[in-house]
């Protein structure tokens, strides 16, 4: 026979179990902003976050003769205002579609929430020029101690004669303000994978570099933070210190559900109020890997 010779039809033996969410991207969905920067919650009644900075002025303590009047010291204070911005997205879902596939709502919420966190990460890393808000990239490029360029690095990280990734990172740490300790090397996956390459002694760079970030175990890669929100060609040495930068949260991402709209449409909105605050540009160092 050439047909109808089956005893069991396919739909009896099929099962739709495995779901592959193509919208999930490991290096985009790792909440970089909330991991590499200290998070500070300010409450939903705050629209402007004011940072107060104090510094000392005048002479320090000194050795003086008995009976003499010491030189005086004092304090100087400045304040900086940071507006908190709303990140938001939304979607419609028809009541019939909800009945046809109840998981649709969960999936849309999942995508929307990922989009929210991606927007947070992009905001924290790349800032927003039109709002005059600096991200990691702008802060590092404004580092007055300098940066490591394609002209000053020890060769392209992709490999050429004389390439020395360890030395580039160590030099970069030297360009970081002395009050901060390096906590992460942040970059695009393309650049970060160069650290897995062996040096001239056939030892992967990440093993020797781990110590530069205070890791006792050379196999500890927690200091390597990959994110696809940064353009390839640059990596950044950063501290995790509230005096350097913070990710300030007025409202965490949350879902707002509206009543059913005409046409049996449900409308859902997600909103968060956040802002990255870079207090000390000299704490962030850019390394060009090209």
């Amino acid at each position: 026979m050439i047909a109808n010779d089956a005893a069991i039809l396919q739909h009896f033996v099929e099962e739709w179990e495995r779901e592959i969410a193509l919208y999930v991207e490991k290096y985009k969905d790792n909440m970089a902003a909330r991991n590499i920067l200290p998070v500070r919650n300010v409450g939903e009644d705050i629209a402007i976050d004011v940072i107060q900075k104090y510094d000392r002025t005048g002479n320090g303590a000194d050795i003086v003769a008995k009976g003499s009047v010491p030189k005086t010291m004092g304090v100087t204070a400045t304040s900086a205002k940071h507006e908190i911005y709303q990140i938001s997205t939304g979607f419609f879902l028809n009541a019939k579609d909800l009945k046809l596939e109840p998981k649709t709502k969960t999936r849309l919420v999942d995508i929307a929430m990922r989009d929210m966190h991606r927007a947070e990460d992009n905001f924290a890393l790349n800032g927003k020029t039109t709002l005059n808000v600096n991200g990691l990239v702008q802060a590092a490029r404004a580092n007055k101690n300098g940066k490591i360029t394609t002209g000053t690095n020890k060769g392209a990280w992709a490999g050429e004669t004389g390439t020395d990734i360890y030395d580039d990172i160590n030099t970069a740490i030297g360009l970081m303000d002395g009050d901060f300790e390096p906590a992460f090397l942040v970059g695009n996956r393309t650049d970060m994978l160069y650290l897995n390459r062996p040096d001239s002694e056939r030892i992967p760079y990440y093993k020797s570099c781990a110590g530069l970030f205070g890791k006792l175990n050379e196999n500890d890669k927690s200091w390597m933070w990959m994110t696809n929100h940064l353009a390839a060609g640059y990596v950044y040495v950063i501290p995790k210190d509230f005096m350097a930068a913070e990710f300030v949260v007025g409202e965490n991402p949350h879902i707002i559900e509206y009543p059913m709209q005409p046409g049996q449409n449900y409308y859902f909105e997600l909103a968060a109020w956040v802002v990255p605050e870079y207090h000390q540009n000299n704490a962030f160092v850019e390394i060009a890997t090209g």
Partner: protein
Amino acid sequence: MKPVNVNAFDIIGPMAAAGQIAFGAAVMRAAAGTVKGVQDIVHNILGIADWDLVEKDEDGFYALYDMVPIIARGRARVWVTSNETTKEALEAGDYLEIADLGGTNALPVGAFQQMSADTGTCTGAVREVGSLARAVEDNALSDIIVVAADLAIGGVTVTVADSSLFTIGDYIVLEDVDGNAMINRVADIPTSTTITLQLASTVALANATDYVHILHQVEVMLL
């Protein structure tokens, strides 16, 4: 001022101010991601800058880098000038276009006028390509007022024949008929013939030649 939003059908959110923008001004694209008050007659406005209940550094104005919510559709209150020395009242149903101000105005304003008001004869009943809004209420409007003394750039005191026509807080337009126009506010009325501006003037006004416009908030349906 009254609320700008009456019954907005849609408010656009991701744009930032490219410079100072008055609450309630018509705005257009300045650069990627930024908007500015409309300067001269255009058809491609984005909408009306809604007001903000939170106090601003410059009262009544968005500043550079501020997020600007833009009413793109629906009913809103916009700034209207008669743009005539002998005004013609605005009636519900009249069409509005961007006010033709100054010679070649290069400064953001964002005010409306009744159709063809700048020619001296309004044609508010006629819808044209440039009609961007339709009034849904009457408004008597005001004659534009010729200044009674020169005003230099940077000046804050405007001399007029009768300052009692103004109220503190009024949005006004300073118009150099051969040059630029700027939107401003009345901060004080110190004498019977002078008003004090909230913002230092960025236009030079010539005695007996140039004008001050009192803007009126008119409820319109955006087209």
